[in-house]
């Protein structure tokens, strides 16, 4: 939440928005219990992910601290051999599930935020160009967007992931996996931003304040950035929030399919993939807890996005 808020704040250029607008949003927030609960859940999850190195009882990335004897310890019960107890149990390699979830969430959130940021930058820039310049620029950008929309986003992401993996040297693959993941999800998700920004830009472009700026000789790029961008950010903010949930799920899906985060740096999706191997052999906790965390994270971000969409839409007020 704190990262996201900071990103929003800088994008809206502080001080330019009337205080009344802020308090409208705050008022609406105070009267939306779902939004408040979602925000609390998101806040707790993000904070615990950020603070994972300090609050996690174990370091799941340090092979030296792992004890294979601790493998498959059920949650809350002492291990039969070592008598150690783990809140949410351990996986096959004796890694503490609670700690892997905290560290996994870090990766999931990092990939999610970065991918959305990438998609947002690409989408907003292309949407502004298409909407403001029109003509063949618009045709090219929007046709590419249309074509990309005919493929499922996850397929596009897998394609990009596959290509990127093919061209990175094997030695760096695990290291690069996270960045490739961000690139793949970001590139598969820019279309919505571009479409919405283009639509909003068309509306703003026809307004006379843009004509007034043209009249005094302001350059097109300056008009796009100084005049139009601040006026199209509300819908971008809403899509960014909902995209964040989708990006986290996309990352989990890719990792679940084994093409995402490597087992040495597991995200929530990787953890679920590891866990599903033990689902039918009785070690349910290895799957259940990462899955529940992913559910809580994606659901509350989504609900927050829904509320934001309603709160920022003047027609619903």
């Amino acid at each position, binding site marked *: 939440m704190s990262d996201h808020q900071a990103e929003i704040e800088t994008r809206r250029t502080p001080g330019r928005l009337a205080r009344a607008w802020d308090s409208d949003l705050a008022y609406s927030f105070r009267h939306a219990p779902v939004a408040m609960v979602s925000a609390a859940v998101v806040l707790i999850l993000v904070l615990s992910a950020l603070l994972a190195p300090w609050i996690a009882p174990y370091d799941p990335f340090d092979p030296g601290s792992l004890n294979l004897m601790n493998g498959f310890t059920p949650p809350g019960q002492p291990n039969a051999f070592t008598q150690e107890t783990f809140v949410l149990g351990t996986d096959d390699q004796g890694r503490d599930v609670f700690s892997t979830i905290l560290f996994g969430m870090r990766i999931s959130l990092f990939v999610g935020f970065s991918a959305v940021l990438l998609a947002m930058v690409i989408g907003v820039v292309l949407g502004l160009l298409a909407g403001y310049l029109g003509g063949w620029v618009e045709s090219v950008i929007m046709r590419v967007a249309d074509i990309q929309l005919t493929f499922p986003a996850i397929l596009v992401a897998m394609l990009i992931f596959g290509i990127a993996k093919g061209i990175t040297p094997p030695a760096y693959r695990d290291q690069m996996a996270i960045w490739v993941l961000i690139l793949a999800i970001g590139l598969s998700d820019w279309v919505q931003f571009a479409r919405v920004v283009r639509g909003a830009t068309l509306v703003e472009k026809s307004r006379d304040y843009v004509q007034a700026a043209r009249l005094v000789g302001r350059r097109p790029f*300056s008009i796009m950035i100084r005049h139009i961008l601040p006026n199209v950010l509300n819908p971008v903010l809403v899509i960014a929030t909902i995209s964040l949930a989708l990006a986290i799920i996309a990352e989990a899906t890719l990792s679940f399919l084994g093409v995402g985060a490597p087992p040495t740096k597991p995200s929530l999706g990787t953890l679920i993939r590891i866990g599903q191997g033990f689902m039918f052999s009785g070690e349910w906790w290895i799957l259940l807890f990462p899955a529940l965390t992913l559910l809580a994270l994606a659901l509350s971000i989504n609900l927050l996005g829904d509320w934001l969409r309603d709160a920022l839409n003047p027609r619903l007020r």
Partner: protein
Amino acid sequence: MSALIRLEHLTRDFDVSKPWLNRVIERLPKATLRAVADVSLEVEENSVYALVGESGSGKSTIGRIIAGLVPASDGVVEIDGVDIVSGDAARIAEVRRELQMIFQDPYASLNPRWKVRDIIAEPVAVRGGDVSGLAERLLEQVGLSAADAGKFPHEFSGGQRQRICIARALASNPKIIICDEPTSALDVSVQSQVLNLMSDLREEMGLTYLFISHDLTVVQHMADRIGVLYLGALVEEAPRDRLFAAPKHPYTQMLFDAAPRMDAFGREVDPPKGEIPDAINPPPGCPYHPRCPLATERCRSEVPQPRMIGETRVRCHHAE
């Protein structure tokens, strides 16, 4: 007195064709809309020239062409002796500084995310001029308070916003201001305040206005010279008093008859006959002939050319 704005045979066509693919499939020809048809006029320095006409008569398009927001399709547009259609780019940029515009809708012509200070100073700031204290000074000049500079547009009423627009238009010290229906979005009580402010500023600063309006009472109050547009063509042009005393073109006569008048409250008025024709398929000959009571065979086939009757220039075969 010299002509500050000169239009010669100005024409503007808009492409209103369907997208290329639809045209191919539906076998449609390219369609164009002639928004401005062969308009010639001159605006004297330090005067107010009013363009009147119904919606869709092309009056705003002429304003926007002069402002350089819409390119001309054909003809000559000269501002202060500089041809802005085909002239030298540096001189065009120079002459454009002398021109400003006030728009119709004061709710759309101010960026809602900008502070009033930045809005007013924009014309100067864009060109790298000194803007310290500029907005405050202009706000007081247009009858607002210097303290308003730190506010956002939504904190103002329509009339106040139009004053902000006027302040912005004055910021770069222009010679010419194109006023595109500046009062038609305002309450009648506020209209007169804004109009009086504009008149006062014109006298103080020696401005030239091109005043675009459909409101004859406003035009009568403001204008020195009036041009009447019908379907993109200038059908009649005369000094204000001439035009109001003796309108020559049947269209102008019809406009005057149709306008509401306070001094003849309750009078019976013949409603205007017919509607403005489709500009994509304009009628042949005189564009007004389908609605004109004087129309003859000649009007249906031959486009009338402008001719002078006294001080009035009129495009009609039958006017006398």
